[in-house]
């Protein structure tokens, strides 16, 4: 079972606005819950998400406990050139996960 699922079009025309979906498996434990024995459950969330395109940061998100478990983000970017789109999630307890998707950009 993949820990991250990302959707990036395999190919795009240069200058085209493409849609990117990024989902990661994570409980996003809020830190506001208790066990049924009344003990607080420590917070365990993803706090940062960064997307880079060919090394350049195109989007950065700060996540709070109100984001649901298995957080997903859908956003857009302009297809500039062929290369890797990289996704990096980081969070509590040293959580860190990276995923990559390649895109081939054709000149118009």
């Amino acid at each position: 079972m993949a820990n991250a699922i990302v959707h990036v079009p395999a190919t795009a025309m240069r200058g085209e606005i493409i849609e990117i979906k990024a989902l990661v498996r994570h409980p996003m434990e809020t830190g506001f819950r208790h066990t049924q024995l009344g003990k607080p459950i420590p917070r365990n969330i993803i706090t940062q998400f960064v997307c880079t395109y060919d090394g350049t940061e195109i989007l950065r998100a700060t996540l709070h406990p109100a984001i649901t478990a298995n957080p997903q983000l859908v956003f857009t970017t302009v297809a500039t050139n062929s290369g890797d789109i990289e996704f990096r999630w980081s969070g509590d307890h040293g959580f860190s996960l990276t995923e990559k998707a390649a895109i081939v950009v054709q000149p118009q």
Partner: protein
Amino acid sequence: MDQSLNLSRREFLISTAAVGGGLALGLQLPFGVNAAIAADVVPEVNAWVVIRPDDTVVIRVARSEMGQGTITGLAQLVAEELECDWSKVSTEYPTPGQNLKRNRVWGAFSTGGSRGIRTSHEYVRQGGAVARMMLVQAAANQWKVAASECSTADSVITHQPTGRTVTYGKVANAAGKLPAPDVKGIKLKDPKDWKIAGKSMKRFGAAEKVTGRQVYGFDLKLPGMVNAAIMECPVFGGKLKGFDAAKVSGMKGVKKVLRVGDTAVAVVADTWWHAKTALDALPIDWDLGANAKVSSASIAADLKAGLTASQAFVGNKSGDIKTALAGAARTIDAEYAYPYQNHACMEPMNATARYTPDKCEVWVPTQDGEASFAAVLEASGLPADKCEVYKLDLGGGFGRRGAFQDYVTQAVRIAREMPGTPVKLLWSREEDMRQGRFHPVMQCRMTGSFDANNNLTGLHMRLSGQSILASVRPAIVEKAGGKDPATFQGVAESGEHSLGYTFPNMLVDHAMRNTHVPPGFWRGVNINQNAIFLECFMDELAHAAGEDPVAFRRRFMAKHPRNLAVLNAVAERIGWDKPAPMGLHRGIAQMKAFDSFVAAACEISVEGGNKVKVHRIVAATDSGYAVNPAQIERQVAGSFVYGLSALFMQECTVKDGRIEQENFHSYNSMRIAQMPRVESIIMPGGGPIWGGVGEPTICVAAPAVLNAFFKATGKRIRSVPLKNHGIEMV
């Protein structure tokens, strides 16, 4: 009044309490807005009232009718302020989509928690009053007189100085065009002046119901409609792995076999019988998951451990129970248990959906049209202006059809696979029994302490079992630091479910033990078990103290006069001070629930030690106000059928992670032969708070009968249902 009518249209800020707590959105509820829905069809005076030229009146009610009479009661309240001719009144449901478009003018649709009337009486009465004022103003304008010179009665407006009259139907159109008066200036009638409300009006719809003309969700027919039968993984938490559609796709009438979400499979066919027959024949592969190991025994063991666990959430507390128990001359204790139970509405769950990319419509018997609407939004993926829900009267609700809209989600998901074709999804009784939202399991250890003079010095009530809200509304539990406040219904420190006794030292706490079985709100909710635990143990304590159960209770009720009043009322009516007739034995119980005070006293006979005949139950209800006494009587008697069926016959057991009982042969329900004579004492005590009626009394029948059983046999039965003890209801 003239002056206020001349003001531009005012908006009425409804109190959060009136919308039903929690919804503190400061909703602007405009009355008298005649733009949106019905303007093209009927002369609407305001959102609540439509009056046709022939003087017939349609009153719009947002709450759902499921046999509890709320539609009739709410219409009575509107009609009372409207001063219309009751014989010309009928009702209709607005839709959730219309409510949204009109800024939620009808308030909440949620029909549960016995709140149909008690949380909306104020704004529906105001709706009637506003409509009346607008009608009067329209007549006054026509006559060119002051509205203050006009009076109303039975849909007729009279200009007092001249005696001129006009009926509502003649001025309704003009009235609908007037600005609505400010509701703040409206004084609602004193209930003692009521002429329509407070009276035992007959329910709407009896003739339709006895002729078969009433259309339930199960009966709906739409052009081109197909029928769906469904099976969800019988082990809660399990998933659908796969199915062999080829095995059934050639069967007669079958149109489609499809996955529904992660957990269910459905067969769509021309008729439901064909769909069901094919579903029964469909090979299905389930991923049952870890819960397949769970059984009633493993659940019970887990709960049992909670009875003595060191940690528990405190629900109600006074004095120092530890010291009281430690210093007691004598303590007595007892362990009780309450099982899972299914709502078993006579009409199984169902919904009909028609989906196109431009519109998703659903027809459904629902206790909360807006919750259904929310489910449609989520399942269809369409925006609110492209969705609509049409409510149908329910063939029973009892809490299954409000907070849970699983069948709506399923119907929409199936309909999305067949755009343009209406799909009627019907659950079989077996599916309905397997996929309930069950009355939660609970065990309880009661401990009482006495001093050397036989005075009760302390009471500890340790609950151990499932939290409904941890599963259904976790946000409430989070906010309460992990505690489920609903667990303490009927024994709470304050509020609509406050304990009806004051003990010198007391602790009520809850060891939360959740299971994989989805819990739900089952008529009465947690008062069912709490009343048995508390009221049976009060009997045990009275017995231990050598005192009469009523006299013993009264010792702790000085600060609870309304609880005491209902207790005294039933004691007096049943003749508690005199010996019971030969062969009969009596029991009694009381509680406050849903802001109503209730008590029951019963007479039973026991033959052969195990054949119990409940001959008579006297029940008292103080719900503050009584909008329709005859319907209250029916709710009380009906609640006893529901509650005593549960006491004697009903338990859903878990084996291999799934519910074992699949139909009425193993999950029985009372028949007419077992029906006791029920005498209702309706004793509304007034005051600022209106109590509920549909649920409260359900909880007092069972402990009263159990206490009478002890009187008859000397045996304490401390777990439900009684069939497990070889006891039957005759």
